[in-house]
């Protein structure tokens, strides 16, 4: 049914100019009855929306205060969480906030390597691998700083991807 089936209740309200304040039920229409066995109470719509918008913010602020807000895009190391030497397995102090270059991420296996990690992190995790090896794989200059992110190497290099590096390191370890 279209909304035009509602006719203004007050004759002094010209239809089409000012919306009617009351609506007349369309003839012959009987809505499905409502059935409930609950005690119900209406919530003002705006209050409901405000509460629902504040709620997630409150949860996230609490999480942040507890040191859980880590979006650093670096592996929350599967092998590090719960490990005594993991350095913040629960997230405390491990890369609070974003964009820290993954300085505190731990690499448990070649699968944990991410593009946002630096060459130095890979070298630290896999002593058998040298910086020269990594640069050679990516096809970038040998004097590239070890603080460079792997995804930057992938971008600057010869088409070699971080996933290729993972596979290569697996063969080396």
């Amino acid at each position: 049914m279209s909304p035009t089936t509602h006719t203004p209740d007050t004759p002094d309200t010209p239809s089409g100019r000012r919306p009617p304040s009351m609506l007349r039920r369309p003839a012959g229409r009987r809505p499905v009855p409502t059935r409930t066995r609950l005690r119900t109470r209406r919530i003002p719509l705006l209050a409901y929306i405000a509460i629902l918008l504040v709620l997630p913010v409150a949860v996230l602020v609490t999480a942040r205060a507890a040191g859980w807000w880590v979006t650093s895009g670096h592996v929350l190391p599967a092998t590090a969480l719960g490990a005594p030497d993991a350095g913040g397995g629960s997230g405390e102090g491990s890369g609070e906030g974003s964009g820290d270059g993954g300085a505190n991420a731990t690499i448990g296996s070649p699968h944990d390597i991410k593009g946002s990690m630096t060459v130095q992190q890979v070298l630290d995790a896999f002593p058998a691998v040298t910086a020269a090896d990594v640069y050679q794989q990516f096809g970038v200059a040998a004097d590239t700083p070890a603080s460079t992110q792997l995804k930057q190497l992938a971008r600057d290099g010869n088409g070699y991807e971080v996933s290729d590096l993972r596979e290569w390191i697996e063969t080396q370890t």
Partner: protein
Amino acid sequence: MTTTDERPPAATVPRRSSTTARRIRLARYSVQAAVIGIIGWQIFQAFTADGSGPEGLCPFGGFETMWTWITTGRTVRHVHPANLALAAAVLAMAVAGRGFFCGWICPFGAIQGAIHKTTSMVVDRIPPLRRWRRRAHRVTARPGGLARRLDGIFRYGRWLVLVWALGGAAMTGVMVFRDVDPWAALISVAEFEFSLAFTVLLVVLVLSLFVRRPFCRYACPLGAVQGLVAKISPVAIQRDAASCLGCDLCNQACPMNIPVNQRTRVTDSTCLGCLECVLACPSDQALGVSVGLPLPALRVPANDRD
């Protein structure tokens, strides 16, 4: 025992203010735009090699790692503590507002909604397309028709995806859903790859032209989680028959095709909490959000107001 509200329907009912509806809709679009802006910024930062990417901003990662985290204290790959925090926030919202996250915050839902809305606006302005849409609607909306039946069957897809995604992650320690996750493909545009996930993303975006929120309807595991959790929610949209005009506008407004005007309380697991039905309802007191508690002896009329 179920109690029927016996009050006779009123001959006339107060009209809902369209200004309020417009403002609430604007607020919803603004929230969605802000969330998309934050995610877009994260993607940009990831692209410029300084940032972390928006992967840490997906609540479903928190659910995928939940089992591993509870049983071993570890998380699966690609998951950060922020994912767990977001999962907790979504759980809290599901208890307090059912699918509110989907309707008001989820950026992927917002993108699908925006595509469909834009298409509708274009079709509205082109008479041949309008006629074609009317014809298509007559076929797809036929009760008991093939389209309706298929829609009902495909909706079980969400539960299958949920079981597969959570079960797979729990058993293998890998986010199995990630390979087909269109959202993962969208946030990885900076590292573009023509993957299976990207194909799914394309399919969802194309389907959004014709179907409202196709991914939310048929495949979203996060929506399914919320649908489950919402079973314990005391909050729901409630209809009062005494003020209802039986006009059907709420049904037409619902992006998930819930027959709102046949419900007393909209407790369907697919409800997005977008409030579109409430905003579309011309009667001021017919639809609203209410808290319902199982206290039969203390039942008060559905349109009880402060």
